[in-house]
Each structure stands twice: as C-alpha cells, then as structure tokens.
C-alpha cells in the first residue's frame, strides 16, 4: 500500500479539524475539532510505524498515548465547558468572552 494514502487523509482531517476549531460556535464542537486534529496525528504515526516496521513501535506507542491524552483533555475540557455554562449560561464562544 502506498504510504501517501494515510498521510493525505491525515492532512485532510487536520485541515478539517482546524476549520472546526476556528469556526464552530459551540464550545463542545470546537473540542471535537481538536479530536479530529489528534486523529490526523495518529494516522500519521501509525502509517510511519508501519512503513519503518519500527522495532520499538515508537509510532504506535505514541498513538496510544495520544489517545489517552485526548481522553484526558476532553474530560478536563468538558468539565471547563460545563462550569463555563453554569457561570455564563451559554456555550457560544462569541458570547463567552463578553
């Protein structure tokens, strides 16, 4: 399989995720954009790991860590969003800042 396929998919997902972070009005969906960006990273890592057939499995190990970090981040992030919602009664990022 060509190495380029996963890499190009990763590039596309990263761009889409970035768009989501920068454009979505809802704070929770901004977080989903971040998740997409992290998934793009994972695709890259696994593809390179497979390409190198790395004996230390660096790519896959970092992918595992990234997934765990993403879970930790989204846990903390949703807690912040909920607290924010309690404080200002909205999750619209344009209004949160006011």
């Amino acid at each position, binding site marked *: *399989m*060509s*190495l*380029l*396929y*996963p*890499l*190009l*998919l*990763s590039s*596309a997902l*990263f*761009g*889409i*995720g*970035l*768009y*989501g972070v*920068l*454009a979505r*009005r*809802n704070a*929770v*969906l901004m*977080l*989903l*954009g971040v*998740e*997409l960006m992290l998934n793009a990273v994972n*695709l890259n890592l*696994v*593809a390179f*790991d*497979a*390409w190198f*057939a790395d004996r230390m*499995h660096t790519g*896959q*190990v970092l*992918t*595992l860590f990234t*997934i*765990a970090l*993403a*879970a*930790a981040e*989204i*846990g*903390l992030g*949703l*807690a*912040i*969003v*909920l607290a924010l*919602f*309690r404080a200002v009664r*909205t*999750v*619209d990022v*344009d209004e949160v800042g006011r």
Partner: protein
Amino acid sequence: MNATEVVFVVLSVLAAGSALLAMTSRQLVHAALWLVVTLGAVAGCFVLMTAEFIAWVQVLVYVGAVVVLVIFALMLTRQGREQGSGTTAEVTGNRWIAAVLGVVAAVGLGATTIAGFGGERIEGRRIGTAASIGDALFTDWVLPFEILSGVLLAALVGAIVLSRSGSDR
C-alpha cells in the same frame, strides 16, 4: 491498485466526508454522530495498516467513551432559547478565515508529505499485535507510560474540582 488500497481509499473518503459534515452540520447531535463515523473509518484505516491493537483502542476509547461524554455535554449545555432547535448559524463570523486556514493547513501538509514521502510503500507485515505493543510499552516506554497515569489522575481531579459547583463551599 490492489484490494487493500481500494478499501483504504473508500474508508478515507468516508472519513474525510463525515468529518466535513461533523464540522459543518447545524444539528449538534448529528455533528457528534458524524464524528463517530469518522473515528470508525479511521479505526478501519488502522486495521488496514495492520495496527489492530490501536484500532480497538480507538473504538473503545473514542467511540465508547469520548463521544458519549461529548453527547452528554451537548445535552447538558443545551441553551434555553433554541431558535428552531439549533438551526441557527452554528459557525461564527470567523468562518472564512477559518476555511482559508484549514485549506492552507491541509494543502501545506499534503504537499509536504508528497514532497517527502512520495513513492514510498508500506509492506504488509503485521506490526500491531497486542503482544508486541505491550512488550514495547513496558520495556522501552515505561517512563512516559507512568507519567501518563499521572496526567490522567491530574486531569480527573481537575475535572472533578472544576465541575463541582461553587455553592457547596
């Protein structure tokens, strides 16, 4: 183009398309569900790259936990004044800059990878069995693994203390 590649391309189109829908959909819950499709398709890509263990973790953690959390959060933060149940503009005025930046990022990264890795091929060796990953994890990568436990604990404590309301103090 062999069969694996055909399946990979199909999954890629599915993943990218549903990601785009997830980031543009006006229905909040739909967006979350489209994200599930994306994550599932990416898990399929992992399988095609013989990283089965990663694929299962992806399904378990993302689809099983993260997305459920997200949907809960969406429900909990549903605003009282829902004009037409979420059909208002769900993107900000920032969207054109955002679109340009997204395209620049995707094209830039794509061009970089084509320039760097064009013509390389992945051999079909099995790389991602649970045994081999576990072996690597607990020999070479044990320090970051332990630190990760600290990260999860700290994030947990942080999340709990932040979501506890101010009134109980």
